[in-house]
């Protein structure tokens, strides 16, 4: 054995003429082997840097787009759920011929008498189209704010679009055609801008004057239920007591939001799926079309003692390094885009179409399930797509190298 060679490392059968040695199956040897494979893989990636960089950029873009859609829709769902936490458990509307109608004030007492109901409040709200900005506002009476009949509080998006603020007057056209000037006394908190972007709050008197609503009716009635788990039972009792009413549960609103975001998310994914398919074809083509140099390299490695498993492990590391780098870069960029840059890319699709876009700052959150989903749709297909063609090359006989 030449001087300096690690004599004790290989357990050789010295009595044999051609010693067949077996490497010691230690954990350390396993880790060293993985380290060598990673070293070799990194060197191989750098040797073909132009092609691999191109692939990495496309891959990163793909992960970025998918992550952006998922992070944004998840963020919106979370935001909606947070805001709806404070919403009443049950809302009761009146239906006439299947359409929403104004609820009589007399309902308030009848609803209070239903067992399980702890509080009842008549609500006044509606929509107002402003031709000046071609947008619909949501108007709501807010008695708890103690506003005077000629005072109003407006949402931040409206203030931005109309370039008005506290102390200014907002002129609305009343139901009788006369202008109704309202003094702005406050702006709504921007933290709840998802819901309040186009919201106007005014007094009950001001609301009734604007829309010519009689004093004995409300838009709908909000109920607080003593035990929220009994909301469905309470709703059934309401339907019996008031046959022309429609009780709406908070859970149903949440489900509706979820369905809307799912639909929008699906729409975005449908568009992106074409891109995913194109990438899969590119990955397959890259692996299946291994260059003559790569095939020769695999042959050399096999001839000098690497087995098919070593080649596959090396290529697995290559796929894992490439796809995890793309995943981390794409996910980080998407995170920044969604939570710090206003999610400009997919906001029109996922927030909905509107004139008054809420300036929404979603709360950053780490969702492990979301990360796993993203890993499953990006990293796993890439590795699977590349492994089969590589396996076909790696199982070739190494003697091809000898024969040139």
């Amino acid at each position, binding site marked *: *054995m*030449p*001087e*300096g*060679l*690690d004599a004790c*490392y*290989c357990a*050789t059968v010295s009595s*044999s*003429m*051609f*010693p*067949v*040695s*077996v*490497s010691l199956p230690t954990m*350390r*040897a*396993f*880790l*060293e*082997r993985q*380290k*060598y*494979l990673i070293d*070799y893989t990194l*060197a*191989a990636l750098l*040797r073909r840097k132009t092609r691999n960089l191109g692939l990495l950029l496309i891959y990163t873009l793909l992960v970025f787009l998918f992550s952006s859609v998922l992070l944004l829709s998840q963020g919106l769902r979370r935001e909606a759920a947070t805001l709806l936490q404070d919403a009443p458990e049950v809302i009761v509307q009146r239906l006439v011929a299947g359409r929403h109608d104004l609820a009589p004030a007399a309902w308030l007492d009848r609803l209070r008498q239903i067992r399980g109901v702890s509080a009842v409040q008549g609500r006044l709200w509606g929509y107002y189209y402003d031709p000046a900005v071609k947008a619909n506002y949501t108007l709501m009476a807010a008695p708890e704010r103690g506003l005077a009949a000629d005072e109003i509080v407006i949402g931040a998006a409206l203030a931005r679009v109309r370039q008005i603020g506290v102390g200014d007057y907002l002129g609305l056209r009343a139901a009788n055609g006369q202008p109704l000037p309202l003094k702005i006394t406050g702006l709504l908190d921007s933290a709840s801008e998802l819901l309040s972007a186009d919201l106007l709050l005014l007094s009950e008197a001001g609301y009734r004057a604007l829309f010519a609503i009689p004093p004995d009716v409300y838009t709908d009635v909000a109920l607080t239920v003593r035990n929220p788990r009994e909301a469905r039972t309470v709703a059934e009792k309401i339907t019996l007591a008031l046959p022309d009413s429609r009780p709406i549960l908070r859970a149903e609103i949440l489900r509706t939001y979820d369905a809307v975001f799912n639909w929008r998310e699906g729409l975005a994914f449908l568009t992106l799926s074409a891109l995913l398919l194109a990438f899969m074809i590119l990955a397959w083509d890259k692996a299946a079309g291994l260059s003559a*140099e790569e095939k*020769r*390299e695999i042959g*050399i*490695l*096999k*001839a*000098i*003692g*690497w*087995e*098919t*498993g*070593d080649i596959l492990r090396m290529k697995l590391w290559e796929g894992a390094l490439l796809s995890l780098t793309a995943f981390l870069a794409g996910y980080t960029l998407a995170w920044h885009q969604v939570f710090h840059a206003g999610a400009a890319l997919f906001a029109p699709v996922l927030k909905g179409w509107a004139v008054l876009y809420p300036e929404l700052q979603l709360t950053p959150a780490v969702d492990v399930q979301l990360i796993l989903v993203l890993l499953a749709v990006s990293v796993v297909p890439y590795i699977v797509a590349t492994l089969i063609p590589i396996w076909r090359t790696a199982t070739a*006989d*190494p*003697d091809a*190298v*000898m*024969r*040139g």
Partner: protein
Amino acid sequence: MIELNDVSKTFNQNQPNECRALRGVSLRLERGDVTVFKGPSGSGKTTLLTLVGCLARPTAGRIALDGRLLSNLPERFLTDVRRHTFGFVFQQFNLIRGLTVLENVMLPAYPLGRPHRALVNAAHVLLDRFGLAAKATSKVEWLSGGEAQRTALARALINDPAVLIADEPTANLDSALSQEVLALLGELAAQGRTVFISSHDPLVFEAAHVNRIVEVHDGQIAGDRRC
């Protein structure tokens, strides 16, 4: 001892381009010998070396190493035998471009997971021995023919194999470099290593340390003599 018993090798079997490279070869290769497989191009000597070195399996016949039958071993075990028993020096050197001389020399040891420091030391010892210490960090594509041949030789020895197989080691070298490589092979043989060389270069047959010449023609053994 390596024993070949009625070994045949056919490429592209049952296809229009079928080629019978070896036909019923029986041979007994002894320990410590420097054996040269001599023959013209296409005679089957390289195929014979690939079978002896476990790079391929025979189509028919048996190959045994120290009494252990190799021809029916699964690939994994065959690779294990190959990486520990044989070192290869290829005609075209087959060094991996883009890697340094040191990295190329260390490559066959990667799957064994030897400690990094020990492996680097072993590679440096071999590079020193073959006069390549100054080239350790050079990319292999910058090497001259002789340097590339010596790098290939160092790579073949990194796992300390008992048998060295050199396919046409002087084919791409001038006379001076050929003599240099033959001298190195002679040194290895003197240390007790078994050496198999395929060649049709008279310089190789006439080398002082060669003690057996096996002539191969049309896939069959045409002559076998001790020197």
